[in-house]
């Protein structure tokens, strides 16, 4: 009698689902409860510092060039010691897809992905993070790496003073 078998199967199914009522739900109630994310999870972006505590970013624009959605913008500036830094650095997280390309492109390991998930915001403009919001105090994933120890900062002679070298051009007054 196939029908008896069908009835048995249905009753088995019903008993299984009934037993599941008393199981503990697997749901994580997100804003109140949080799971610890794996170390390499791409939840948000931070700018790290080198072991000496100085900013690692040299404003080379590589991250901004690598970004598939063009959400990083910055302006480069140069310090007294010839060390480059970003005068401002901005990531628009409302466009960021957290792909991690920027972190891969960065030669100084300044920009890194962090497993911390940032909150959603009610205003889009609040999703735009400035350098102050991004910069953290630690070194991030590679604690001993220091770009300038490999590259050095000092410029041997002032720019444009070498033999046959022209003075640096001012792009804003580059008249024909």
């Amino acid at each position, binding site marked *: 009698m196939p*029908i008896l078998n069908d009835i048995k199967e*249905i009753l088995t*199914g*019903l008993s*299984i*689902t*009934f037993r*599941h*009522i008393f*199981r*503990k*739900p*697997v*749901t994580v*109630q997100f804003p109140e409860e949080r799971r610890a994310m794996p170390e390499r999870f791409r939840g948000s972006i931070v700018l790290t510092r080198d072991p000496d505590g100085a900013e690692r970013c040299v404003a080379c624009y590589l991250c901004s060039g690598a970004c598939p959605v063009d959400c990083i913008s910055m302006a480069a500036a140069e310090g007294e010691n010839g060390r480059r830094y970003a005068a401002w650095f901005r990531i628009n997280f409302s466009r960021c897809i957290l792909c991690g390309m920027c972190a891969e492109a960065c030669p100084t390991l300044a920009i890194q992905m962090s497993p911390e998930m940032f909150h959603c915001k009610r205003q889009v403009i609040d999703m735009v993070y400035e350098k102050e919001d991004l910069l953290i105090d630690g070194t991030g994933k590679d604690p001993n790496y220091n770009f300038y120890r490999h590259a050095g900062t000092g410029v041997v002679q002032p720019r444009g003073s070498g033999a046959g070298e022209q003075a640096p051009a001012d792009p804003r007054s580059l008249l024909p």
Partner: protein
Amino acid sequence: MTWTATDIALMLGKIVLLYAIILTGAAYLVLAERRILGFLQDRIGPNRVGPFGLLQPLADVIKMLTKEDMIPKAADRLLFSMAPAMAAIPAILTFAIIPVGAPLQLFGRQVNLQVADLNVGVLFFMALSSVAVYGIALGGWASNSKYALLGSIRGLSQLISYELSMGLSLVPVVMLAKSLSLADIVNAQADMPFIVYQPVAFVIFLVSILAECRRIPFDLPEAEGELVAGFHTEYSGMRFGLFFVGEYINIISLSSLASLFFLGGWRGPLLPPIVWFFIKVGLFSFLFIWVRGTLPRLRYDQLMHLGWKFLTPLALLNILVTGWWLALR
């Protein structure tokens, strides 16, 4: 019987009370379904709006009412706007004949906890469930969309087929009670609920009401995997809400009918009758939700096969056997 002012006031009072009870009942059945389905699937379900999500129905209603109400350009406007009402009103009307408790003695007069004790109650219920088919048929037809039309064709044939087995499974009950009135049917179960004499009819009725409510595993008219949303694909806003509420009111009304026909309605030891009634209706509603959380959807030919080749002949056989038994007793 002449109607006095008190009679009319009493009747109106009962109607208003019943309305309030079934509409809140349906709203909270939706919430209960979502929570219980959640637990069945190791989830939690909606628990954010109010304590334990108890205000969720209110939020849903506000959402439905404030949504844009669209009528497709090619739709038949009159039928399109009538169809949701035609699905919901018969479901509500069924409650007119349902006795929810023992008659009360109030101020020296007998008050039936039933809006109308029709002497053809069972027929009235069968008639209303046939009228409810029009809501689906016209809703799908008037939308002028292929999915809606396919859904309503399926719904039509499904409801008509299962109405047959549902009606036939009620015949033995009527034979045992020797009356079509629901109050008499409940009274006839004073010493033994009919489920003891009629287990086969009970199972047939249970399967048929699952199909009548268009619930999983018989939700072919709205099979979202293949038909988007079936007959109510084109509906939005409160018109969709009416279909939705109608479905849940239908669950409550069919659950109460199942408990009236087979479990003795409001009869039960110790607890007051109304409490027994609500317990039984709650059990059936839970069964509906539980089955939804368990079974997959039938294929169309399996559905027709089950209805015509299995349930209907079985119900006829059951009538025959009951008749013999009643004659030989």
